[in-house]
C-alpha cells in the first residue's frame, strides 16, 4: 500500500501492520530531514506531491517488488508539507519469511520511489535562500 499525506509518520505504528506469523524478517527504512545538503545548511524542507499519480506509481513500485521478491507485506508512506530537521519524510516497510528478500525489496522500493514518483522538495537554507532540489534555477 502506498500513502501520501501531511500526517506525521509513526514508524512503530506502521511496523505493527506488517506483523505476520509467516514472517521471519522485517526491514524498515526511514528517510529523515538532515541539516546539510550539498554544502548548504538546511533549516527545513517543503514537500509537494501530485497525489493521484504519486499513489498510483507507488502502488506500481510495490507490486513490482512483490513480483521480484517473495514478500508477505509491503508498505510505503511519503509525507508532504513543511518538515523540520529530524522529521521522517518517507517510510518503507516490508515483511517476508527470510531477511534477504526483505532487505532487497525495501531497497528496491525506496530507490524507485525517489526517482519515479511526482514528489518535489524545496530546501529552505539557514542563509535564507530556498531552492527546489534537483532543479536548475535559470528563470529570469
Amino acid at each position, binding site marked *: 500500500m502506498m500513502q501520501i499525506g501531511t500526517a506525521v509518520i509513526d514508524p512503530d505504528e506502521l511496523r505493527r501492520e506488517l506483523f505476520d506469523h509467516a514472517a521471519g524478517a522485517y526491514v524498515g527504512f526511514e528517510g529523515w530531514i538532515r541539516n546539510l545538503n550539498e554544502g548548504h545548511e538546511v533549516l527545513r524542507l517543503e514537500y509537494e*506531491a501530485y497525489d493521484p499519480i504519486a499513489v498510483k506509481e507507488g502502488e506500481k513500485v510495490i507490486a513490482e517488488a512483490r513480483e521480484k521478491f517473495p514478500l508477505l507485506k509491503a508498505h510505503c508512506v511519503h509525507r508532504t508539507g513543511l518538515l523540520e530537521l529530524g522529521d521522517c519524510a*518517507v517510510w518503507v516497510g516490508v515483511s517476508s519469511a527470510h531477511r534477504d528478500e526483505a532487505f532487497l525489496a525495501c531497497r528496491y522500493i525506496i530507490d524507485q520511489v525517489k526517482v519515479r*514518483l*511526482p*514528489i*518535489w522538495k524545496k530546501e529552505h537554507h539557514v542563509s535564507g535562500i530556498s531552492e*527546489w532540489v534537483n532543479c*536548475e*534555477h535559470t*528563470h529570469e
Partner: protein
Amino acid sequence: MSKSISVRYFALFRENAGIDEEQVCSDAKTAGDLFAELIDRHGSSEPLGHCKVAINDELADWDAPVNDGDTVLLFPPVAGG
C-alpha cells in the same frame, strides 16, 4: 487546426510560470513539442529527460501525442525521499 489544451504546472514550474494552470491553444503534436513551446513559461533549462509529463492523469512519454481537450501535467525533476 489548433488544439485547446489544459496545462498544469508543478513545484518549480508553477513558481516560474506564476500560475497553477492555463488553457493554451497549440499546434504541438507531442507532449515534448508542447514543453518546448511553453519553455518561456516554465523557464527551465532542464533536459527533457530529467522532467516528466502526464496526460490526463497518466504518466506519458515525451513523444506521446497531445489531443484537443487533453490535460497535460508538466513535472520538473522529481526529488522524493
